[in-house]
């Protein structure tokens, strides 16, 4: 049987439609934080508005789950609902959306971010240094959730492979393997957004 690039997302949706509680827990834990950050940036860091937008996004998406066909990543599909809700918020406030100049809003970058879930490399974009943090975090948000978490635990919190394995409830070897895949996915995604990036040009050197 052929498995498409979003096989795992389709399987999760099937379990949600069947009323599987662990699937809901996984769905919420994986997508709520990402959507909240997605909305927060676009709503001028108004946390109340972001909360309402994401609640509405998830409720509407759940109502349409049966229409998800796995033609795009589930996160991409959810983000389309979220964009609609954000636009509706601005319409109701009779305000134009803020000019946020988010690099990930560029069509090529959106395509590249979507490609992360299936591990391809596409677009060529220059990365401006002032957007670095935003871009790195956005890249992490678009990786499979365990990848993003594991990379943060490893390189920001400084956890050992064994400690990461404990958090993921897998053995050290499996954790190491996951970290390898996570690094590869991050590199692929990040290089597709900011090719030719020279770390020395960022004003810091590898430790």
């Amino acid at each position, binding site marked *: 049987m052929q498995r498409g690039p979003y096989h795992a997302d389709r399987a999760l949706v099937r379990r949600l439609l069947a*009323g599987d509680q662990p699937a809901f827990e996984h769905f*919420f834990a994986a997508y709520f934080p990402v959507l909240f950050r997605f909305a927060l940036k676009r709503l001028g860091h108004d946390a109340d508005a972001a909360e*309402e937008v994401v609640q509405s996004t998830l409720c509407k998406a759940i109502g349409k789950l049966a229409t998800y066909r796995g033609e795009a990543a589930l996160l991409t599909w959810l983000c389309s609902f979220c964009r609609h809700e954000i636009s509706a*918020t601005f319409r109701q406030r009779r305000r134009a959306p803020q000019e946020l100049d988010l690099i990930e809003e560029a069509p090529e970058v959106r395509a590249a971010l979507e490609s992360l879930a299936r591990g391809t490399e596409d677009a060529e974009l220059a990365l401006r240094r002032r957007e670095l943090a935003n871009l790195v975090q956005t890249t992490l948000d678009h990786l499979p959730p365990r990848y993003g978490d594991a990379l943060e635990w490893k*390189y920001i919190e400084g956890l050992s*492979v064994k400690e990461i394995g404990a958090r993921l409830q897998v053995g050290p070897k499996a954790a190491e393997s996951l970290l390898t895949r996570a*690094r590869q996915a991050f*590199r692929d995604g990040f290089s597709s957004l900011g090719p030719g990036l020279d770390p020395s040009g960022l004003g810091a050197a590898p430790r």
Partner: protein
Amino acid sequence: MDQQRRQPNDAAPGAPDRDLVALLLRLAGPRPEVPVERARRVKQAVQEHWAGQVRTRRRRRLGWSSAALTAAAAAALWSLGPSRLADRPAAPLATVASVTGPLVAVHSNGDRLPVGAPLYPGAVLQTGPDARAALALSGGRSMRLDHGTRLALDSPASIVLHAGAVYLDSGGRPGQRAVFEVRTDRGAARELGTQFEVRIEAEALRVRVREGAVELARDQPVRVEAGSELRVDADGRISRSALSPHDPSWQWVLEAAPPFELEGHSLGAFLAWVGRETGWRIRFTDRELGARVAAIELHGSIAGLTPDQTPAAVLPTCGLSHRLLDGVLRIDSR
């Protein structure tokens, strides 16, 4: 957070690539955390919505619509049956508004009563051990019958409760109708307000009042106010306790509620129904919105949802958000 408190211990093959990943992540810092309280609130709302969707889907799969058609046809046959035409009075005291599980007419050889069946004075009804039902009484009152309830329809203003529990709702307009009475062998509960429950337990009679007040007729009448519960034990001793109008113990009333016909009704009427059924107070974040809801016409169906599940299904479609806190449903235009 001390980002350098421990060095990665994986410096071997591919180290330059790892160094680049490590450098980028350290420069960017951790992604912002989502506040726990916000996540909890949203999760609760979304989970309720998801559970409601799942239930609706399951009921649809079970052929909900064909069951409804069958029930309607059975109701028509039951009401037109020749054996009932002869002694039927001019107007029924009630009709069956909704039913889950068997509701039988004890006075009529245990016939099962479908939705829409008219009921006349002297009718004796019984719900099965897992059944619940709602009756629409003449005059606009609504009555719910819990599991294992047996009662007789006595007159337009009274019933006799033999077992189980009933919930009466006179529609939020106290004083505009004749007083309604629920009679039991341990006393009669007389409606002075609009929403209350009378339950016969093994060793006690229990009266709970959600809105308005009830007077329990005994040697010395006892008044039970909204937000309280009164128990009369087998020895006649009385005890009282407080009970919120939206206490979880009212849930059975919601589960027995007849469905609200969304199609063509206004959002204002829908919210009034939600407030009445759930005991929640409905509040708007601005007056303009409060005035506008009467003009918003609704379409679609909320069949299969209990009243407390319906705001999450309906309000987002109107571009509205909501929050429930301490029995107050606060509605906002996003």
